[in-house]
């Protein structure tokens, strides 16, 4: 029997492409977020509210990933900003190579903020670096306050948590304090925002955080 010592990261190819993307983003002064959540938490709605609030201040482009359909790209496209749809045909997460291909269709001179809307999934996307500056996780009040405890890697790897659908709190058994407590127990450095994409409550605070990140 012979042994070959390897000591290589399984996702080294993804990480290499992600690092190349990060260098490109930096050279274009582009701030990039990787937006993550379960299906139906409101990622596309958050992008709509964010673009409405920020589009007179900065240039925003969006890459959106879905298993099927370009419905989200059509929604976001109505806001008159550049949007590229990635259809993964079954794959449950975006990989750096898919983002690299989509990025060629973005006008890099005209983009201050690039939002990558990942496939709705709280498990698989956590491990794939897309070259982003920050991962942002979205959780809605209808999903269960213990989601951060059930999907710790996602909340551990993110820099910000947005709690969406706070307008529904009177109708569902949810406590923002419990969500905050559970999330902080996994990742004490999370910046947390409470929003309603329905009423736009809280969108200003979230957008100000984004503007501050872009200035850094």
């Amino acid at each position, binding site marked *: *029997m*012979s*042994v*070959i*010592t*390897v*000591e*290589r*990261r*399984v*996702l*080294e*190819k*993804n990480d290499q492409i992600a690092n190349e993307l990060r260098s490109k983003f930096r050279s274009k002064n582009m701030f990039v977020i990787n937006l993550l959540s379960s299906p139906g938490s409101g990622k596309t709605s958050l992008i709509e509210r964010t673009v409405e609030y920020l589009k007179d201040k900065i240039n925003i482009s969006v890459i959106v990933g879905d298993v099927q359909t370009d419905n989200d790209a059509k929604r976001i496209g109505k806001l008159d900003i550049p949007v590229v749809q990635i259809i993964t045909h079954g*794959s*449950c*997460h975006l*990989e750096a190579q898919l983002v690299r291909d989509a990025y060629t269709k973005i006008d890099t001179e005209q983009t201050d903020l690039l939002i990558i809307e990942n496939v709705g999934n709280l*498990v*698989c996307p*956590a*491990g*794939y670096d897309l070259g982003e500056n920050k991962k942002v996780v979205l959780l809605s009040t209808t999903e269960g306050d213990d989601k951060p*405890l059930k999907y*710790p*890697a996602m909340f*551990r790897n993110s820099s910000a948590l947005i709690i969406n659908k706070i307008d529904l709190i009177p109708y569902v058994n949810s406590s923002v304090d419990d969500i905050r407590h559970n999330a*902080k*127990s*996994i*990742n*004490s450095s999370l910046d947390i925002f409470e929003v309603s994409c329905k009423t736009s409550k809280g969108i200003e605070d979230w957008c100000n955080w984004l503007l501050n990140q872009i200035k850094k």
Partner: protein
Amino acid sequence: MHELSIAQNIFQIVNCSVEKDKLDLVDKIYLKIGLLSNVLTESLNFSYTSVIENTPLKNSRLYIEIIPIKIRCNNCNVINTSNDFIFNCPDCKSLEINVISGDEMIISSIHLKDESE
């Protein structure tokens, strides 16, 4: 099901780590996978079996060592290792901790049978 993507990555790395004419001798592939990687061992083994079908690696098997989560407290510097997802210091209860291992996914070694075996 990111295990399928992981299995394909393992397949590619083994293919370029072993000389072409020795690929059919690959017997065991040792992996270190951190608990925080969200990898289901059974699912990865199943995915790998389907990836290697009809290839020179068809007789190889994965040997997966699960790496527990190791955290260092920024407050009291105590290091703690746990098989649970606990991100506070067991000594001083501080939440200011760093994960120092448990999120890795590494191919550590490849074992080949001798040609005579």
